[in-house]
């Protein structure tokens, strides 16, 4: 009985110290407190960037960010793909690319390269971490400079002489080049 009492006393002492040190509990604001960032609710609009706002949860803070960021990059990839497809349609309408199987295949190959390499430069522009119940909730805003994708597409087209010869006189290519020049100017302005 005495031993049992001693053990209980010891346990209480330890509990006292551990609870006394309970300051390590995270004081992150809970999402229910309306801590959702503005940029998540109203995703910024900028002609020079593609944005994707994503959120995810995890018991591990970094994993919550990784989940949200990967989801954001996937969304950016989809948006870039859509833009390239729209560009392909414009080229097709203007140059009759669809009737030329070889040219179509070349353009598709160039646009695929753009999509697979386009996420170079995508980055977490903003991030915020909150507590959501017992887990961390990460909000991330991914951004990707759209000019980089345009510049890459122009490079890919220029690399192929046949495709370049066919496209360079088209209005769509002219617009694409102008946008790329604008992007280069904008890049200089960022310095």
């Amino acid at each position: 009985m005495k031993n049992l009492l001693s053990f209980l006393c010891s346990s209480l002492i330890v509990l006292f110290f551990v609870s006394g040190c309970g300051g390590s509990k995270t004081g992150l604001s809970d999402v229910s407190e309306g801590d959702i960032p503005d940029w998540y609710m109203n995703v910024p609009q900028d002609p020079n960037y593609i944005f994707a706002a994503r959120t995810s949860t995890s018991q591990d803070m970094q994993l919550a960010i990784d989940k949200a960021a990967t989801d954001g990059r996937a969304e950016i990839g989809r948006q870039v793909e859509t833009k390239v497809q729209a560009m392909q349609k414009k080229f097709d309408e203007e140059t009759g690319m669809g009737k030329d199987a070889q040219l179509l295949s070349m353009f598709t190959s160039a646009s695929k390269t753009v999509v697979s390499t386009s996420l170079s430069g995508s980055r977490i522009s903003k991030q915020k971490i909150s507590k959501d119940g017992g887990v961390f909730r990460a909000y991330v805003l991914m951004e990707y400079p759209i000019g980089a994708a345009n510049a890459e597409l122009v490079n890919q087209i220029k690399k192929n002489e046949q495709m370049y010869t066919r496209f360079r006189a088209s209005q769509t290519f002219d617009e694409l080049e102008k946008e790329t020049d604008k992007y280069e100017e904008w890049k200089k302005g960022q310095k």
Partner: protein
Amino acid sequence: MSAFRLFLLFIGLEGCATLSSQEIVQYPRWFLEGERVVCPNKIVGYTTRSHYQHNAVIAAKKNAAENGARFLQYSLAGIQAFTKFDRGTRAEGNTFQEHFDNNIIEEIFSNSVLLDSFFTPNCTIILLGDSSCTLPNTQREMLSLVSEPVPQWIITLPRSEEYFYSVGVEQQNYYEYSCWLEAEKAARLELARTISSSKIKAVQQMSNTTNAEYQSEELSVTVRNAEIAGRWRDTKNNIYYVLMRCSRNQ
């Protein structure tokens, strides 16, 4: 039985000593504002606090040399995958592996000089640099995290045409030094993601009962001359932040 009680008491006190480190909210300027330190090959090293400060400094110096080798050039390769369901996202794991040239650690260790060191209750932190470096007193000034304004970069990443930036975070755990090192590791990974042409695959699977999207990200990149541009510790929320950067001319 009394020995057992003393043991339990010791455990309780030890845990308390570590956790109370959150009360220490002062760091030197060179630690928090790394980008302002004008010194070639500056590197920060960490280790636990020891009763033998000299030994702790040597251990921190070794850690700094390893960090220096890592920042000089590291390669990161692997895949990270997630499956996104309506109810949330499941992590499928990652195969990321980081490599760096550990043959130069010894060289960095012997060629660098100790510029400054400081101690928190459970962490030893040192700054190494070239022998030509001198650390001005303004850089040694201790800054209080309570009175200093929270840096903007913990929410909004700086935009620069000269550098790629990334932020790494880590929640507080038992050892302060491991929090900083883990935050640096996370920043290195994010920097690699920013620089590299990460291949993203997203495959959607839809049926009457489930809606899932498999997302994977493949990385293979070498990063050169990375450096820590800033550090911050959110003492209220117990989060460690590290701002890392490297030149765009890789």
